[in-house]
């Protein structure tokens, strides 16, 4: 892709916007359309676009697969951790109302954290899937 100057320039321009839009969908998800899954996919697609245009090695240098695996696990742990916090604060599992002094604020905080967990795991898994498929032939050749 070295000679595709237009493609490379436009990609460089687009990636920050894609990532920013992902964060918007993530953190605005409780007021408008969106949420963790969509945000995770958009964030992942930003990195995947980088990988397609600039090559797998450069993408792996940005986010190494080992880091992604940890992130994927941490997202699930964040989700479950919020649920367990509900139990420790005297509510049911995944009861957000007890997370803050006021139930509405607790609900707000709870859904935000849960969706952050979802977003982290989804983005990490999307990128890992891309790495796995794009790197497949490379492993075969040794």
């Amino acid at each position: 892709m070295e000679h595709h100057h237009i493609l490379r320039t436009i990609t460089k321009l687009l990636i920050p916007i894609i990532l920013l839009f992902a964060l918007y969908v993530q953190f605005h998800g409780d007021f408008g359309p969106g949420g963790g899954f969509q945000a995770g996919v958009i964030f992942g697609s930003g990195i995947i676009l980088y990988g397609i245009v600039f090559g797998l090695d450069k993408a792996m240098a940005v986010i190494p697969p080992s880091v992604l695996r940890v992130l994927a696990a941490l997202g699930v742990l964040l989700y479950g951790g919020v649920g367990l916090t509900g139990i420790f604060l005297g509510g049911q599992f995944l009861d957000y109302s007890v997370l803050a002094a006021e139930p509405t604020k607790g609900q707000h905080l709870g859904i935000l954290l849960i969706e952050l967990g979802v977003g982290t795991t989804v983005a990490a898994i999307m990128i890992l899937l891309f790495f796995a498929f794009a790197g497949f032939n490379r492993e075969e050749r040794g």
Partner: protein
Amino acid sequence: MTLLGIDNHLPALQVVIPLMGAPLCFLLRRPVLAWGFSVAISSATLIIAFLLLQTTLQTGPLSYALGGWAAPWGIEYRVDTLNGYILLLVTAISTLSLLYARTSFEHEINSAQLPLLYAGWLLCLTGFLGMTITGDAFNVFVFLEISSLSSYLLISLGPDRRSLTAAFRYLVIGTIGATFILIAIGLFYSMTGTLNMADLAILLSKNTESRTFHAAIGFLLIGLAIKAAIFPLHLWLPNAYTWAPSAVSVFLAATATKVAIYLLLRFLFTVIGAEHSFNLFTLNQALLPLGVLAVLIGSVVAIYQDNIKKLLAYSSVAQIGYMVLGITLVSLSGLTATLLHLFNHALMKGALFMAVGAIFYRTGSLRIADLTGLGRTMPLTMAAFLISGLSLIGLPLTVGFVSKWYLVVGAVEANQMWLAIIILLGSLLAIIYFWKVIEIAYFHHKSSEAPVVNEAPLSLLIPTWILVGANIYFGIDTRLTAGVAEKAALLLLGGTP
């Protein structure tokens, strides 16, 4: 246990502990640590399942509203005698086969993949427990997908390359099954606007004439039959069990189809209602020939196998046939037999697959012809195989006898002597395929050039013999198994969710 009132949260913790354990297990990286951690998690779920069953036996069903949202709007976890019994079975088998797994996995699987494997195992356990405990129809589908996806992973990590095609085949067929179940749940939802099982049971009974309802039952039955490997939808099972890693075969053979049979019972008796399922739609007449064919064809095909795990897998197809036959009787003794056989078959097949795993550990072969002389060189392993085989045939003083006894009694009570004869015929066929193995292992002398084989290590023998001991113990003292199974059968027939 009163700390923070944690005992009130046991239904949620039953599922959440393995769910949280899986990513932690993955982060541990060191295979031995990951193994120890997953054994600890699985043991914790076993203790919780035991406490839950004890509580339901004493005080009746438990209900847990996730997130504090009351049913039928929120997701409800509901534990009664029936699913408490299944939870205990699944967690006990998972814990025992994890104890067995370390030595077996180290021999069969690349150590870099082990933490991933244990994480997948815990996710699979999460899925089974979630499907069993939940009182919400859509939640069943979610957990079904969790357990299915992780079991495809577990199977694909098998030592033989054929495990990849077996896992892929299971993935394709299993996804069709899961989709059918989802379609059925969607149709139920479109009719009633609710997903809670108890609420569905009330609302569905008002609208039995609708075409949507009939279509939903068709989709549901086929979807669950695929997952439970009911003949003729069992085609994924033999290859998946044969080429999976040994310990995974133990775990899946003893639990996966059992949970699907539980769901079949739950949907037929609780959600649709026994009255509608069997009097209005006469689903027992549809299931009866499938059960009979499963017993006969499964057993006959097992006789012609030359791979020992495949033999056991086809024998599982036949044993699932017995469970289906128990359901079709729609009587107390029939259902008790199904529920007992669910438990007892897990004990026998668990022990058999463990013994075969130990043989594979020493000889590296699954061919029946390579078993020559093992009765002398691996006496303890072969004795375990022999005793659990006799249990599968249904010899008195073993668990196999108890469940077949209830089944025959059920058939005679229903005035269906021919069914009792089919059940006995199935046992005779089981003698043939077991004798084939026993004869080669005990009575054929191996050639002098064959490599010397030692007895399997204790880490494999101890879990195997615990299960063999359970085969005999529960064959003599049936108070726990038959007592609870009968209570659960009463609960199903009473129509109370």
